[in-house]
């Protein structure tokens, strides 16, 4: 396939890639550090390029509910925001999960809590992977670590959203959103026609023909026994994701004495830390979860048998470390290193933390 090479910000790359992935609609509200997404879309006039709808909503609440409405009609629809805005969207995300609708939500994470800071952070890990809103549900969460992955994952995210009929989150951060890198863009995928949608998605609320019963999109059932069955069904989808969708990357793991577990921009920083550690004669590898839910438990468990200690490196006060510890189950030492509130750890700090917390004297 012919590919086009560009230098783009992560935020721009995901917007362009979404147009090319044949997405039908984007609804969003500006917030730093991801406003380039809607700015890029508005400048590109996707309505003229592919017929894609782009609308600036009055709030994140409205935006996610526009996504809910449109997703219920079988359209490929997405939104993006940053941490405080994602908190506002949680009610809608819970409805989308409960109603089993496909959509993609991009979170370019900034430091919190509250209004926090506009600088990069990974402190929304719990919110992204454990549900986020009310009720028992999960998002399938993809964590890009480069501008190229911002572009590549949006298409993957749509495929997964439709495969599981559920919301998929791309959990990025201010580093990946704001930095520019080389990106190879895929060719335009045509949007589905209205007839194709009607045929492919018989559940879509697009008007009831005489040939079928009415379609209802709802997360409500006042009969608790039915609601329990619905929950069991949702859980079976999450178990299937754990079987089929785990993605990860291993770097330098073959003869490593120690292991970093890090995702997104922290994984990039750790790659530099691996070089710096090697200069000191320390053999450390990196396991980078690409899917945060489902989490690569098995792969981390296997590494726990091979290394002397594991450092979970996150731009948070220690959130992913809980999943790492569950996977390791006490077999080796697991410690956390992170900076938070918008501070990005340096590669040298990570090595120092490895020596201090894991290797010891």
């Amino acid at each position: 396939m012919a590919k086009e090479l560009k230098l783009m910000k992560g935020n721009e790359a995901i917007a362009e890639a979404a147009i090319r992935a044949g997405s039908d609609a984007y609804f969003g509200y500006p917030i730093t550090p991801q406003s380039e997404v809607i700015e890029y879309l508005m400048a590109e006039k996707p309505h003229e390029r592919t017929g894609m709808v782009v609308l600036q909503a009055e709030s994140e609440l409205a935006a996610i509910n526009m996504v809910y409405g449109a997703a219920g009609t079988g359209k490929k629809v997405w939104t993006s925001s940053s941490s405080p805005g994602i908190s506002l969207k949680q009610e809608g995300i819970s409805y989308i999960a409960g109603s089993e609708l496909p959509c993609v939500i991009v979170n370019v994470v900034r430091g919190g809590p509250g209004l926090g800071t506009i600088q990069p952070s990974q402190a929304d890990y719990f919110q992204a992977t454990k549900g986020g809103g009310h009720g028992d549900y999960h998002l399938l969460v993809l964590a890009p670590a480069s501008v190229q992955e911002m572009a590549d994952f949006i298409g993957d995210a749509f495929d997964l959203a439709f495969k599981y009929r559920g919301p998929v989150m791309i959990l990025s951060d201010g580093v990946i959103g704001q930095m520019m890198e080389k990106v190879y863009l895929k060719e335009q995928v045509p949007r589905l026609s209205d007839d194709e949608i009607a045929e492919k998605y018989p559940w879509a609320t697009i008007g009831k023909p005489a040939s079928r019963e009415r379609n209802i999109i709802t997360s409500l059932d006042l009969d608790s026994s039915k609601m329990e069955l619905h929950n069991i069904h949702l859980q079976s989808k999450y178990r299937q994701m754990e079987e089929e969708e785990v993605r990860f990357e291993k770097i330098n793991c073959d003869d490593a004495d120690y292991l970093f577990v890090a995702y997104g921009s922290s994984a990039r920083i750790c790659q530099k830390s691996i070089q710096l550690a090697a200069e000191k004669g320390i053999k450390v590898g990196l396991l980078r979860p690409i899917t945060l839910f489902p989490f690569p438990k098995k792969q981390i468990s296997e590494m726990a048998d091979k290394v002397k200690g594991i450092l979970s490196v996150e731009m948070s006060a220690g959130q992913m470390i809980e999943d790492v510890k569950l996977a390791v189950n006490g077999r080796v030492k697991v410690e956390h290193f992170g900076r938070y509130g918008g501070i990005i750890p340096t590669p040298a700090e990570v090595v120092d933390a490895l020596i201090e917390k894991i290797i010891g004297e």
Partner: protein
Amino acid sequence: MKFEDIIKKENLIYKKTPLMTDNTLSYCPGCGHGTAHRITMEIVEEMGIVQDTIGIAPVGCSVLAYEFMNVDMTQAAHGRAPAVATGIKRCWPDKFVFTYQGDGDLAAIGTAETIHACNRGENITIIFINNGIYGMTGGQMAPTTIEGMRSSTSPYGRDAALMGHPLKMTELVAQLPGTCFVTRQAVHTPSAVRKAKKAIRKAFELQKEKKGTTFVEIVSNCNSGWKMTPVQANKWMVDNMFPFFPLGDIKVPE
């Protein structure tokens, strides 16, 4: 004796629209919701647009509207129906999209979504049932509860100094350039029902012409919440609600 012997086919003067399901209405006897549902569905049937119609149910008494309206429907989060409708209509501009919302949903928690959908001139129809009270949760004060009116959270009557003023959403959205048809109706008498039905038809027809947002308020009763008999409630509505919420068209297209 059979049913057909009593009511002969040639004597049939009224038939339930197939666009109302056979499910038992969850509304209290005397409530206006059932009538409002029926006339909305009759318009969809009469216009022959069921295959192109998508409705949005709110949170409130009519949360289960999708159990009764036999059209494709999406149930929205509290107050968000106009945003949900926007998402659908933007993706399917030739479909008919309507929301069916109560006063708590539309005029309290969903005020922003209502105003912005109307201000953008989304080509949707908003049907707004205003009974001045939160029915489903047990009769609490609504943004449209009129001054002096009792509710479980204004047990001595609404005191504007303490609780704020009742909100005239319909007059408010009529000011917005995005709305093309804004009207206030009722369904308490046969003639009022006929007028309300005509207004809903007009709203759907204007939606087809993509003239902007169409907004039909229906002032209704809540005999349970108001703690009255249905007859008393309708009389109270005429005497007390209508002076504050006068019926009639507020904005009509030129």
